C-alpha cells in the first residue's frame, strides 16, 4: 500500500470524521500537491517515523485542535493567553513539538484553508528576486522551501524560537536537496533580531497568534522593510489550538492592527476550514485563515 493508502486507512480506522474529511479533500489536491505531500511523508519516514506514527501525529494534532475548539466555542476565548503557559507544554517539549510540527506539516496539504494559503503564496513568490528573504517561524519548512524553489533572492534566512522547529526546517530543506549555502536557519526570538540592511521579502506564516504582542511583531517587520519589500503573512482568525494565545476575532480587527503597524494590504486571500463562505464563518466564529500580501505604507 502506498503512503496515502496507509495514512488514510489508519485515519479512517481511528477517526471516522477525519476519514470522511480525507475522502472529500483528496480530490482537491493537484497531482503536484499530492507529490509534495508524499515527499513530506517520505521525509518524516527518513527521520525515523513510520507512516502509522505520522498518521498518529496528525490525529494528535486534530484531536488537540478539536478539544481547543470545544473549549473556545463554550468560553469564547483561547485557553491560554501567555507565552509562558504554552512554552513548557509545547515549544520546549520535544516529544509534543515533534507531533505538533508533523501534524501541522501534514495539514498544509489536507486542510483546505492551509492548502489555499500555500497555493497563493506560490503564485505570489514565483519569479520574485532581490537581496535577502527573511522568514519568521519557518516551522515545517514548506513556505521557505517553496520560496527557494520559485524565487531568486541572494539568500534566505529563517528565524524560529524553537530549536526543535529550526532543526526540522534544516532537515527538511536538506532532504529536499536545497543547497545549504543558500539559507541560514537561526534559533532566536525574532524581537531580538537585527539587520543593517532592509529585506527584499519578509514572510511570516501563522506566527502572530502565537505571541502576546503581535502589533510589536508587525512593527518590527516594518523596521526591517522598505517601500519595495514584499511582505506576506498568514493569520488564523478564531482558530483555537493549544499554542494560540492571541485571539483575532475578525478580519476588521486584523486589518486595523496591520494599519496601526504602518502596513497596508495590497491583496488578501481568505479561506475557511470547511468551504463555507467567509461571512458565515465569521458570524459563527469558525476558523478563517487570512493570507495577506502587504507593503509598507
Amino acid at each position, binding site marked *: 500500500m502506498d503512503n496515502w493508502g496507509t495514512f488514510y486507512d489508519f485515519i479512517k480506522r481511528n477517526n471516522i470524521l477525519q476519514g470522511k474529511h480525507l475522502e472529500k479533500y483528496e480530490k482537491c489536491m493537484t497531482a503536484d500537491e499530492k507529490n509534495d505531500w508524499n515527499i513530506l511523508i517520505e521525509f518524516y519516514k527518513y527521520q525515523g517515523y513510520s507512516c502509522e506514527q505520522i498518521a498518529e501525529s496528525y490525529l494528535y494534532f486534530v484531536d488537540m485542535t*478539536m*478539544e481547543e*475548539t*470545544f473549549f473556545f466555542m*463554550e468560553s469564547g476565548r483561547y485557553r491560554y493567553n501567555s507565552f509562558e503557559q504554552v512554552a513548557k507544554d509545547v515549544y520546549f517539549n520535544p516529544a509534543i513539538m515533534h507531533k505538533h510540527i508533523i501534524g501541522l506539516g501534514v495539514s498544509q496539504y489536507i486542510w483546505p484553508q492551509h492548502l489555499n494559503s500555500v497555493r497563493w503564496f506560490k503564485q505570489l513568490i514565483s519569479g520574485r528576486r532581490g537581496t535577502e528573504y527573511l522568514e519568521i517561524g519557518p516551522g515545517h519548512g514548506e513556505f521557505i522551501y517553496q520560496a527557494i524553489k520559485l524565487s531568486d533572492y541572494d539568500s534566505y534566512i529563517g528565524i524560529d524560537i524553537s530549536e526543535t522547529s529550526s532543526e526540522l526546517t534544516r532537515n527538511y530543506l536538506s532532504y529536499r536537496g536545497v543547497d545549504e549555502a543558500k539559507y541560514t536557519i537561526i534559533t532566536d526570538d525574532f524581537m531580538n533580531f537585527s539587520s543593517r540592511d532592509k529585506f527584499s521579502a519578509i514572510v511570516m506564516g501563522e506566527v502572530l497568534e502565537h505571541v502576546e504582542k503581535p502589533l510589536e511583531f508587525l512593527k518590527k517587520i516594518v523596521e526591517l522593510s522598505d517601500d519595495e519589500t514584499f511582505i506576506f503573512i498568514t493569520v488564523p482568525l478564531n482558530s483555537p489550538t493549544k499554542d494560540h494565545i492571541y485571539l483575532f476575532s475578525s478580519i476588521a480587527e486584523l486589518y486595523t492592527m496591520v494599519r496601526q503597524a504602518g502596513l497596508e494590504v495590497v491583496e488578501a486571500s481568505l479561506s475557511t476550514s*470547511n468551504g463555507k463562505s467567509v461571512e458565515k464563518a465569521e458570524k459563527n466564529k469558525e476558523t478563517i485563515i487570512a493570507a495577506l500580501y502587504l507593503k509598507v505604507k
Partner: protein
Amino acid sequence: MILEEVQDIFRDVFDDEDLVISHSTSADEIEDWDSLAHIRLVVAIEKHFNIKFAFKEIQALHNVGEMLELISNKCRQ
C-alpha cells in the same frame, strides 16, 4: 421529545429546515457533518439542555442515538 429538540439543533447547525434525523443517523448520512460541525452540535446541545459534556464523551459519539443517551444521562444527573 429529546429527539425533536435535537433535530431542531441539527437543522439549525446544518442550515437545513427539512433535515430529519433518527437514532441511527450518523456522519455518513449528513455530508456537512465534519469535525467542526460535530463540535458546534454538541456545544449547541449543551446550551439548549443546560448540561456539560467532557471532551472525551463527545469524541466517543458516533450517531444520534448515542447523543440522545448521553443527553438523557446528563439531564438525570
